[in-house]
């Protein structure tokens, strides 16, 4: 349940008293109704907020104003975007509902959230302005990137206004060049002499000579805050001119001097009130009373507001105010100088009041300012569950960093929180220290008397983080040990922790090659995560289940897993959960394998159409590989390579073992094209050898190596391939990896054939067919091309199945037959082809092209493969048919 939002941050201020009319500035700002960004950039006290308030009061029919008053706590994506969407919803209730839901689920990329927001904004019938006030408090680069994204995609009727003390790191130059930027800077905001005069005499009612006004304006340089303070100092004075010339005669920091003047003129109780409440970021009567220890806070605030003493109202009901920032800073400096010992106490009182009134973040801030770290740590512990739920990681990190080590160490829950934050940000050395601290606490005296619930939480948390740490370190056994301990410790009432631990076990066993155990643990994990309501993580689990089943050769079960995931992704209505697109990619696999290429293509298209909003980050490359495999089935190897290259560029790693690296896929395709150079280079880069110890994680690569060796058409290589395939077959069998085994047996059959041992080839192939028939495998055989098709014809058993396979081979053009130049000749190959049509022999061609004979032979081989021929004469004939040669 998200914490309630502070309505005061969303309050749209209205002009409440006569200000100086500034028609030239307002006219300039009015252009903001036609621009993407209006930037008001000037130091504190230049009247930015007042100016914007003036501009936007009574904007006119059909125009809406949204306002967000930013403070340092908003420098956290979870907080910032929630408030930004809320501010838009205040102005235009139909906007941002979907964005709000996505933000609450916490698993969505910000671009996705902003896209839905932009779509909502695009439907607005009238213009809307969104003001971000005090934007300079925003520091996090990804927040600036998000705003830049918004600026790029804003519909024409929506306009952003930023008020700031420092130019934001946004593409201002680009906006300026496109005429999409309206600016008002310090030079524009300063009061002119005329405006200063109007302010002092008309608005503030002072009687001043023209010379006085000129002196004041000169001394303050039109700095509005200074003029306001000067005006306050001059009220009720008889000696205006004397004061002014005295004021002008020194070069003291103007604001400080004037605030001192103003303070001196206040009665003692008002002065004390101002100084003591200056520590508050928001003021209301009862809070002021708590801090000052007096009564009458509400009345005091009313009086201050009427006296124009820099109180800014934060709502329409005169309950909440804040001081003008500049004024507050100077007051605080005075307080610090006059009563340094009192400051901590004031903050402590404020902290207690805020805590009693459920403003925990502010209570924390005051506790830290009071340097009461014990209190701050206690407050943080209480706030932790909510912060976690709302993914306020940036805030959590900031507060944890502000706490001294001993305050954290004494509280194991906080110690674990720090470990968790470090893990999240990949700062692994920090993790170890804090886990040791947590374990030390468990062994220490405090643990003996501790609440059993707390003990369980700390034991489980420590074990879970140790398991995660082991996983990152690639220590599968360590992961298993720690994750099991989590399950020993926690009860059934914490499905999230159970699900996380079970998932880690699933990952560990999977990467060790124990697919049965891996699957069992993933099933548990998915069930627990569903109970915990963490649906996005459920989808990740479904991918694991599906992928494991495919490796085990259980295509129907794999499809079931992806179908289940799809159900989870869609059952909660719109928007679809991230991962729906991934399920479609998963479903395409078994369909493709069974030669339902239309079905496979349909799912891949659906996945693409669902778009990034419905996809996990890994889906880009998974889609690429899945589609490449369909291209392979269609015989379009060049197309497959292009897709694999795109997939590689889009590759994003995750926790799952990378069992089929894209580079290995690439090698397979180039081998099928007849280009062994690249595949050899790949094998060398990966350090692969036929004598390697075999592990599950490298199985796919080793099978690819076997393919390379088979393609070498070399007796020694064939021998190594045979030995390697033999070992691979045993390993796959032991590991229950029927999917891999079918492929390995098929290759073994081809190897036997290459050795001239037809009976062994047929027997081995029969073994593969037996395993493959129940699940309806097709492509694993047909994609091997005519050599395997020929072998199939020699198989006396599995009659119906073989017939189906042969039909499939003849109707779909596999990679063994080259359709009319799907793979065009390279310029070099064309050169060689042209010379092949002439009289030169190999060495002659080499001399003509100034290359080695070896190169000529390579190109010739490629030309033959692409033309689907095996002789020079046939190549020339085919090339003439295709119009490549005259």
């Amino acid at each position, binding site marked *: 349940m998200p914490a309630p939002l502070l309505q005061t941050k969303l309050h749209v201020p209205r002009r409440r008293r006569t200000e100086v009319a500034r028609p030239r500035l307002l006219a300039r700002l009015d252009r903001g109704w036609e621009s993407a960004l209006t930037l008001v950039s000037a*130091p*504190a*006290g*230049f009247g930015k907020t007042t100016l914007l308030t003036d501009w936007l009061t009574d904007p006119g029919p059909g125009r809406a104003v949204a306002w967000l008053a930013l403070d340092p706590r908003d420098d956290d994506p979870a907080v910032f975007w929630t408030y930004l969407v809320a501010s838009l919803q205040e102005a235009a209730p139909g906007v941002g509902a979907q964005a709000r839901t996505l933000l609450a689920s916490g698993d969505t990329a910000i671009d996705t959230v902003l896209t839905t927001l932009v779509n909502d904004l695009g439907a607005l019938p009238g213009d809307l302005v969104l003001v971000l006030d005090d934007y300079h408090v925003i520091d996090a680069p990804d927040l600036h990137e998000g705003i830049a994204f918004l600026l790029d995609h804003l519909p024409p009727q929506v306009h952003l206004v930023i008020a700031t*003390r*420092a130019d934001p790191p946004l593409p201002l130059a680009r906006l300026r060049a496109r005429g999409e930027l309206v600016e008002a800077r310090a030079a524009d905001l300063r009061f002119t002499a005329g405006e200063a005069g109007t302010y002092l005499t008309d608005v503030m009612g002072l009687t001043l000579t023209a010379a006085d006004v000129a002196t004041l304006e000169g001394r303050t340089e039109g*700095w509005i*805050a200074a003029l306001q303070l000067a005006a306050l100092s001059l009220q009720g004075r008889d000696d205006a001119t004397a004061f002014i010339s*005295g004021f002008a*005669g*020194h*070069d*003291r*920091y*103007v*604001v*400080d*001097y004037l605030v*001192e003047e103003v303070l001196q003129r206040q009665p003692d109780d008002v002065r004390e009130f101002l100084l003591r409440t200056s520590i508050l970021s928001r003021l209301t009567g009862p809070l002021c009373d708590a801090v000052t220890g007096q009564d009458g806070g509400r009345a005091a605030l009313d009086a201050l507001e009427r006296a124009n003493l820099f109180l800014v109202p934060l709502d329409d009901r005169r309950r909440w105010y804040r001081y003008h*920032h*500049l004024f507050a*800073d*100077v007051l*605080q*400096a*005075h307080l*610090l*100088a006059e009563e*340094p010992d009192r400051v901590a106490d004031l903050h402590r009182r404020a902290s207690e009041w805020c805590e009693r009134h459920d403003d925990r973040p502010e209570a924390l801030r005051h506790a830290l300012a009071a340097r009461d770290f014990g209190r701050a740590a206690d407050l943080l512990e209480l706030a932790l569950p909510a912060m976690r739920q709302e993914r306020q990681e940036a805030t959590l990190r900031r507060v944890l960093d502000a706490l001294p080590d001993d305050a954290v160490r004494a509280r194991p829950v906080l110690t674990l929180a720090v470990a968790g934050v470090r893990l999240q940000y990949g700062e692994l050395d920090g993790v170890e220290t804090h886990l040791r601290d947590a374990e030390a606490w468990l062994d220490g005296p405090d643990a003996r008397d501790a609440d059993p619930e707390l003990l369980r939480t700390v034991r489980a948390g420590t074990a879970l983080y140790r398991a995660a740490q082991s996983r990152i370190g690639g220590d599968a056994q360590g992961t298993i040990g720690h994750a099991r301990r989590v399950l020993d410790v926690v009860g059934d009432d914490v499905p999230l922790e159970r699900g996380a631990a079970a998932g880690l076990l699933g990952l560990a066993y999977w990467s060790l090659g124990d697919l049965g155990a891996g699957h069992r643990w993933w099933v548990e994990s998915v069930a627990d995560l569903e109970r915990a309501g963490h649906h996005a993580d459920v989808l990740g689990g479904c991918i694991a289940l599906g992928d494991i089943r495919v490796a085990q050769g259980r295509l129907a079960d794999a499809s079931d897993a992806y179908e289940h995931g799809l159900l989870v992704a869609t059952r909660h209505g719109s928007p679809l959960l991230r991962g729906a697109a991934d399920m479609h990619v998963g479903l395409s696999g078994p369909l493709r394998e069974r030669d339902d290429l239309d079905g496979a293509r349909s799912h891949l298209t659906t996945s693409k159409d669902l778009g990034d909003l419905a996809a996990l980050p890994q889906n880009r490359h998974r889609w690429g590989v899945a589609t490449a495999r369909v291209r392979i089935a269609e015989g379009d190897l060049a197309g497959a390579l292009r897709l694999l290259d795109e997939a590689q560029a889009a590759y994003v790693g995750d926790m799952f073992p990378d069992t089929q690296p894209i580079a290995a896929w690439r090698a397979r395709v180039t081998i099928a094209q007849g280009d062994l150079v690249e595949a050899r280079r790949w094998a060398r880069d990966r350090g692969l050898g036929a004598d390697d110890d075999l592990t599950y994680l490298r199985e796919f690569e080793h099978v690819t190596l076997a393919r390379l060796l088979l393609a070498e058409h070399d007796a020694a290589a064939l021998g190594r391939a045979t030995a390697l395939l033999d070992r691979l077959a045993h390993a796959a069998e032991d590991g229950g990896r029927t999917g891999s085994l079918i492929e390995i047996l098929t290759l073994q059959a081809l190897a036997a054939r290459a050795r001239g041992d037809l009976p062994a080839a047929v027997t081995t192939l029969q073994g593969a067919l037996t395993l493959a028939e129940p699940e309806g495998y097709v492509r694993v055989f047909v994609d091997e091309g005519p050599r395997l098709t020929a072998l199939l014809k020699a198989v006396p058993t599995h009659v119906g199945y073989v017939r189906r396979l042969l039909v499939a081979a003849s109707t779909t053009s596999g990679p063994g037959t080259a359709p009319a130049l799907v793979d065009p000749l390279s310029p070099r190959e064309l050169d060689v082809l042209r010379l092949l049509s002439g009289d030169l022999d190999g060495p002659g061609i080499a001399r003509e092209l100034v290359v080695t004979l070896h190169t000529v032979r390579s190109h010739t081989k490629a030309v033959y493969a692409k033309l689907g021929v095996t002789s020079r004469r046939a190549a020339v004939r085919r090339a003439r048919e295709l119009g490549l040669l005259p």
Partner: protein
Amino acid sequence: MSTDEQAPESYEIRVQGRLDPRWASWFDGMTLAGAPGGVTVIHGPVVDQAALHGLLQKLRDLGLPLVSVGPTAGPPAAVPPHPTA
């Protein structure tokens, strides 16, 4: 400037506008001194770049125009502050 290099331990920041000595506690650990032309020289130990930027932000938030910022070895050659009016 890489944060791995040996960072200077002191910085000297000059702002336009004389700050009363009272402000020293606001910039804790720093000393304030006056310089000709109505300039205040803020000088003292700065732990790292992040601390320097924090200090600059405090000055920004007071609206004090920056004149110069730079690392320094010893205390600045400064004119003692004028007596307050």
